């Protein structure tokens, strides 16, 4: 204490709790300069830059979000389309199957029809042929029977009317016998 006190001649020992005016002034001026420079020039730049950066980052995030949303929407759309296409395909397959079944049924029905028609026409043909054969045979069998009868009895039956009656009776007998026989054939 002594050495310092003696090294500062003429200066009163200061109370450390009493501020010195020159220091207050210097401190105030220095701080004021620092504050004003930071306030007016440097920090606005810094905060502007920080805001721009967070904008840029947020903008980037927003863009990424938008892209993600778009991708999601497109994916959903594709899925929907795919689903639709599957439904469509299934529906078409079903339709084709039904169509095929229907065509098959139609063809079958048509075939049945044709078969029936063919059988029918065959039957008709057979009936007609039989009719025709009967008609042809009618005359021939009559003549042959007359001839045969003439030969057997040895004399010609001159009487036209009697001749016809005999032939008719014979044919009627023949016909009843043959229809009974054909009925028996059909039932078998």
């Amino acid at each position, binding site marked *: 204490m002594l*050495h310092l006190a003696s090294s500062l001649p003429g200066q009163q020992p200061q109370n450390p709790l009493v501020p*010195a005016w*020159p*220091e207050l002034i210097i401190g105030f001026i220095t*701080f004021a300069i620092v504050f004003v420079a930071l306030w007016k020039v440097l920090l606005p730049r810094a*905060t502007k830059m920080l805001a721009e950066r967070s904008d840029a980052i947020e903008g980037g995030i927003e863009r990424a979000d938008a892209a993600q949303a778009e991708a999601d929407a497109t994916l959903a759309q594709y899925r929907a389309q795919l689903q639709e296409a599957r439904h469509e395909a299934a529906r078409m397959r079903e339709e084709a199957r039904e169509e095929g079944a229907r065509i098959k049924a139609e063809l079958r029905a048509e075939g049945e029809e044709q078969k029936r028609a063919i059988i029918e026409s065959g039957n008709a043909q057979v009936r007609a042929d039989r009719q025709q054969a009967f008609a042809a045979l009618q005359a021939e069998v009559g003549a042959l029977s007359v001839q045969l009868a003439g030969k057997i009895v040895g004399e010609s039956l001159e009487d036209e009317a009697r001749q016809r009656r005999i032939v008719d009776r014979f044919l009627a007998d023949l016909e009843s016998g043959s229809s009974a026989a054909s009925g028996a054939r059909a039932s078998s």
Partner: protein
Amino acid sequence: MSDVLFAAAKSCDPNTSHIFSGCPYPAPNIEDFIFKPIATVGGFEITKPMVLCVLAGAIVLTFFWFAFRKPKLVPKGAQNLGEMGILFVRDQILRPQLGKAGDRFLPYLVSLFFFIWIMNIMGIIPLIDFPSTSRIAYPLILALPVWITYVFLGMRHQGPIGYFKNMAVPAGAPWWILPLLSPIELFSNILVRPFTLTIRLFANMLSGHILLLVFGLASWYLFSASIGLLFSTASFVLTIILTLLEVLIQALQAFIFTTLAAFYFSDAMSAAH
């Protein structure tokens, strides 16, 4: 005996005296905080703390100038560091007290924090070795504008009468205690706050500096070819440990000063206490 010591002390140079030389330990005291003027400009005496104060301001300005001379969207180097500093003050000091609306105080709080911190830190920089804030004028001149802003904000946000009323009548206090409580509240809120703000910083820096001086001087004083060498070494190690402690305290005091400023502002702006 004391006469002998006193006589010896008179011829002792504290820069060269060691233990067992008959010279006393040159204990640090308040005189170590009084400086001879380095130069006199027009009757204005310039001292070391003034130079250090201006230097601290210059350092803060230079740093932020380099950081934000040409700010880039993608920061590099100094800008990164500057942004870290600003964001630290904003997110650790300003926002917890004042919220987002308090961002207009950012330049003030940034200036306060870094100016105080740099002045404080000079206490451990070799060859500088002195925190200007250990002289009361510097904390005081920083606390006064805080106090003025505090009172001004309070009056603007609560009205001049409402301000004093809110301060003198704490919410929930029964009426009969008010004669006792109101003077204390007024005294504590208006007068004590700036004073404690000053004293806290000033006293911490003063005591820290004295503490470093005690052990720093002791390591030198005890340094001799004797048992003193052991004590000298211990002292030296302690000086280093205390220096590290000071680093923490210097930053902490700057932080506390700025945080309290922010707290006072938010206190003044919220009507009810």
